[in-house]
């Protein structure tokens, strides 16, 4: 079993033919900060990001008749953004009645208020649906004059690994750092021509109130070239409920029309009732840009939920067609196949979905 895990990891981490979403950045050969307000990606797009989503991403662009185009900036000091995901899904779980449902997956509003242009701003990411409103990110950020470093304080998503859109990916759920688990603290970042690095000190409570003396320390560093990028992440949460350590590597490679992403993470957590548990997760993803506005995403994921227990591994395979018919609108049609131990029905479900994502 260990040999197979090792082979999977080697494939994930080293092979040039192994590929993985921040795939836009890999396709374009740029860093996350090129298109996002947040240097670590995700959330509100900046003026360049909105312009790219309006002109380069879609299969067709609806002509607005020469009127003013959306760039997110109401003026030099106030910028807005929004994101809505609504879906219909069908889930087939062995020995259970199949489920089908329409859902609002999430609706988010973004606001950036700039007090000193390009230097000092306040950023808010508010989830307004489904259910009531709750805040996900709220921080103040200061940029150096040459934009080579920044510091932010408040509530934020932690820097770790590839910031995939899909929070249900094993590499997002098992490390527990994703866009549903922000934390409160301070983050410092470095942005040079090829390097993007961050270090954060936070409560380690996933935005809950601080309940112990320990803190969570998270670091991420990425080296970015036009055709490829590679990076590493580390996080240590010194919590009363148990110490949790994450270590991971990730990469992105562009080969012609395909953008590949790969990530592998090793998680140790001694907060489990039986003591320490070691977990291993991996992701490999290929994004084939079939034509402008058409992307086919194939993803394979691996999870070993306890390294000391044999034959408990899980995999998840996904195929998602992403069609962007016009600016600021994407339709996604996908199939996910979960494969786990036969005793657990949920680990062997199949899911089909269609999703609409409006973003600007």
């Amino acid at each position: 079993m260990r040999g197979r895990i090792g082979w999977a990891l080697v494939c994930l981490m080293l092979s040039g033919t192994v590929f993985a979403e921040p795939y836009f950045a890999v396709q374009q050969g740029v860093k996350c900060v090129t298109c996002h307000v947040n240097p670590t990606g995700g959330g509100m797009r900046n003026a360049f990001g909105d312009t790219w989503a309006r002109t380069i991403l879609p299969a067709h662009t609806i002509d607005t008749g020469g009127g003013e185009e959306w760039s997110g900036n109401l003026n030099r000091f106030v910028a807005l953004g929004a994101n809505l995901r609504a879906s219909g899904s069908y889930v087939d779980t062995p020995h259970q009645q199949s489920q089908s449902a329409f859902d609002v997956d999430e609706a988010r509003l973004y606001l950036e208020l700039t007090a000193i242009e390009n230097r000092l701003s306040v950023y808010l990411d508010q989830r307004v649906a489904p259910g009531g409103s709750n805040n996900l990110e709220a921080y103040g950020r200061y940029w150096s004059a040459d934009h080579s470093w920044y510091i932010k304080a408040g509530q934020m998503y932690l820097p770790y690994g590839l910031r995939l859109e899909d929070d249900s990916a094993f590499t997002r759920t098992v490390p527990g750092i994703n866009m549903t688990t922000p934390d409160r603290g301070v983050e410092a970042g470095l942005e040079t021509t090829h390097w993007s690095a961050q270090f954060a000190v936070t409560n380690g409570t996933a935005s809950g109130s601080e309940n112990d003396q320990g803190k969570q320390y998270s670091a991420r560093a990425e080296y970015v070239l036009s055709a490829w990028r590679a990076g590493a992440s580390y996080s240590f949460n010194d919590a009363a409920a148990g110490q949790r350590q994450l270590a991971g590597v990730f990469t992105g490679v562009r080969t012609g029309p395909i953008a590949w992403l790969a990530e592998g993470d090793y998680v140790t957590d001694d907060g489990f009732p039986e003591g320490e548990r070691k977990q291993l997760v991996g992701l490999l993803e290929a994004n084939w840009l079939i034509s402008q506005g058409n992307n086919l995403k194939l993803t394979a994921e691996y999870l070993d939920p306890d390294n000391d227990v044999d034959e408990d591994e899980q995999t998840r395979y996904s195929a998602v067609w992403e069609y962007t018919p016009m600016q600021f609108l994407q339709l996604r049609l996908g199939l996910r196949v979960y494969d786990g131990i036969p005793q657990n029905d949920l680990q062997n479900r199949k899911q089909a979905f269609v999703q609409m994502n409006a973003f600007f």
Partner: protein
Amino acid sequence: MRCMALAAAAIGLVGCAGNGDGLDENGRPIQGGPPPLTATFDSIQQNVFTPICTQCHIGAGAPLGLRLDEASSYAMLVNTPSVEVASLLRVKPGNPDASYLIQKLQGTAAVGSRMPLNNPPLPQATIDVIRQWITDGAQGPSATSGMASPAMRGVSPAADDILAAAPQEVLVQATTELDTTRLSTDNISLIRSGLDGSFEEGNEVIMKPLRIEVRSMQPTVVALMLPKNQWVPDSYQLTIAGAGPAPVTDMTGRAINGGNGTTGDDFVMHFEIGGTL
């Protein structure tokens, strides 16, 4: 197209799922296997909380501090206020509709997403079993040590925790049902060290007024609360008497064992606020 075929082949190398040999439904080595899902806490813990909820709600990173592992879930759910909507109890015995747990599982909560997050909703039949457990009074785990005298355990904070800030409350759980009519400040005391980290110097400070709230009966979960301004950075010692004139006992009159198995010993637990001592 050749590139995509290569991509598909490479992705296929990621690995295979385990065959589950020797494992139970939760992927743990077989030790009897979980019972069928029934409206009891043990069954719900083993069929729902452990295999599904503890994918996230466990250990240091448990969202909103809500841990749903076997050792923590009962005390953290039953009669305990929700963090997201403080006016609601996570589980209100006898009233599933007013229980925040049910609202989160049914997707009707006022805040946040439906649980389990990023997984398909629980089948309605499963939710109905949990509703039934709540309707039946949200009874606790079955006693595992029928002959042993009752023992106590700190749930939040746990023994020897170092807290950065004052706790909302001190939550302790017994292994069985206690005679709660005996619980009082005569046999439950909370003192702080007097800023020297020691409890033998004679300068200790008795924390009061200490409010004792029984959260559940079987097993007994007790929350101890103080006015917020009473908490200061210091070492704290919680003592629940198993000896003396007014010991804490179970319903049969057996005194608690303090954790070492000897009936009639005091339960003593320490924790610290500030971490400077």
